[in-house]
C-alpha cells in the first residue's frame, strides 16, 4: 500500500507492506542515517523518533502506523541554534561523551526544548530513560536540558524586545 507522512518537515510518499518495520522504511526508503536497528525490541533506544512530537521506538512499530503522522528524527534539528545550544550544554555537564546514543539523547533533549512550559524533572528523566543510555548521569542530563531551556528563553525574550 502507499502511505504518506511528514518526515522532518517534508511530505513523503512510500510504498510499504504489512511486514515492514517503520525503522526499515525510514532508513531504506527515506535515507535517514541517524537511526540504528540493533535490537528490534525497543531496548537499545537507537531507533527513537518523534511521532507527532512524542517519543516512539521505530523498531517495534509496523511501518503502516506511520500513515498520516508527523515524524521527526535528529536530522530535523541539527542545523538549528537550539541544537548547538543543547549539545554545548551536554558537553559542559557531562564529562562522558556517549557516541552510541548521541542521536537518541539529543533527540530527547530537542523534544523537551520544544515545550512551551519548562519541562519538569520527571519528564526529563522519563525522556532519558527512553534512550537506555548508561553512561550519561541523569542529573547531568536534567541540568543540561534545563540550562539550555533557560538560555533559549532568555535569547527569545531579547529577540522579541528588540
Amino acid at each position, binding site marked *: *500500500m502507499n502511505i504518506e507522512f511528514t518526515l522532518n518537515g517534508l511530505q513523503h510518499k512510500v510504498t510499504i*507492506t*504489512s*511486514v*515492514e*518495520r517503520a525503522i*526499515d522504511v525510514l532508513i531504506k526508503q527515506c535515507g535517514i542515517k541517524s537511526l540504528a536497528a540493533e535490537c*528490534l*525490541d*525497543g531496548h537499545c*533506544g537507537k531507533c*527513537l523518533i518523534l*511521532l507527532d512530537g*512524542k*517519543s*516512539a*521506538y521505530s*523498531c*517495534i*512499530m*509496523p511501518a*503502516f*502506523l506511520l*500513515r*498520516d503522522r508527523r515524524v521527526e528524527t535528529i536530522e530535523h534539528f541539527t542545523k538549528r541554534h537550539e541544537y548547538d545550544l543543547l549539545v554545548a550544554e551536554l558537553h559542559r555537564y557531562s564529562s562522558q561523551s556517549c557516541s552510541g546514543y548521541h542521536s537518541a539523547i539529543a533527540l530527547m533533549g530537542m523534544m523537551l526544548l520544544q515545550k512551551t512550559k519548562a519541562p519538569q524533572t520527571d519528564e526529563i528523566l*522519563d*525522556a532519558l*530513560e*527512553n534512550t537506555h543510555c548508561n553512561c550519561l548521569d541523569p542529573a547531568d542530563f536534567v541540568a543540561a536540558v534545563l540550562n539550555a531551556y533557560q538560555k533559549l528563553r532568555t535569547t527569545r525574550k531579547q529577540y522579541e524586545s528588540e
Partner: protein
Amino acid sequence: MNLSEIHFPQTIPELLTLISREKNIQLIGGATTFGYLQPTRYLSFPNTIAITSRIPELHAIHKTERMISYGAACTLSELEHVYPFEHPQSASLLRTVATSAVRNVATIGGHLMYDCSFLSLWPLFACLDAELEFRAASQSHIKNIWYLVDENGRHCAAGNELLARIRIPLLSIDHIYIKRIGGNIFPGGDGAHLVSLTSVDRRSINFFRLVLAGARAFRDFEAEQRIISASHPLSPKIAQTVLHMYAESLRKTNFWNADLILPLIGQVLEDLQR
C-alpha cells in the same frame, strides 16, 4: 512472508462491518506487543488487520459526576492526568509500564486485551470494578473486567470483539496499596501485582478490593465482603479471619507462590488496623 490487508477504519460502524465480514481479522492498537514479540526482521500478522487508532470516538475521554470513560484507543500517556492516575500511587504504577516511548503508542485497549498475561494496569482496573464495553456488528454489551478471567484465573480475551470503551465509577479512595512481586510481567514470567483499594466512611470500611494479577488473576470475593462494613481501624480478629480466608483460597486455587503473597496481604490488613 505473509502479507496482510491493512485497514484504517475511520468510524466504529466501518470497523464493525469489517469485523463481521472478515473471519480472520486482528485488531491493532499501538501494535507494541507485535513489534516486540516478533524477533524477526519482518513482521507477521493474520490476513486482515484493522487499526483502531484512527477512530476519533475511540480516543474520547468523558467524565461525569459518577464515572469516567475512556475510548480503548487512548494511549497510556493520554491517561496520565486522569482518574485514577492522578493518585500518586497509581501514577507510579503507570510509569512502571515500559518507558514513555512505549506508553506514547500503546493503547489502554491493547493493554487490557493482551491475552498472554494480565499486564500492570489490569489489577488496578479490576479493583475499580471497571466495565468494558464490547461492540460487535449485531450487538454490544458491557461486562465487568473480571469477565476476562476464566475459571483457572487465566486471561480469556473475547475473539474478534472490539473493546470500545472502559468505564470506571469514580470513587473516593482513602488507602491504595500497590506492590509488584516476582519477575517479569511482560511478555510473560512469574511477576504479579498486588493492588488493594479501601475507602472509609466515618469509622467503617465501605469499600475494599484486593486483586492479584500476573500470569493469572486472583480475587477472594468472600474475604472482601468480610472487611466491607467492618469498623476502621480493623479489629485484629477480623484481620486474622480474613488473612486465613485468603490463605485458604490462594492454596486451593494453587495461585503462584502463596508464601510470598500472604505477608503482603497481611501488610494491607495491618495498614487498615492503623
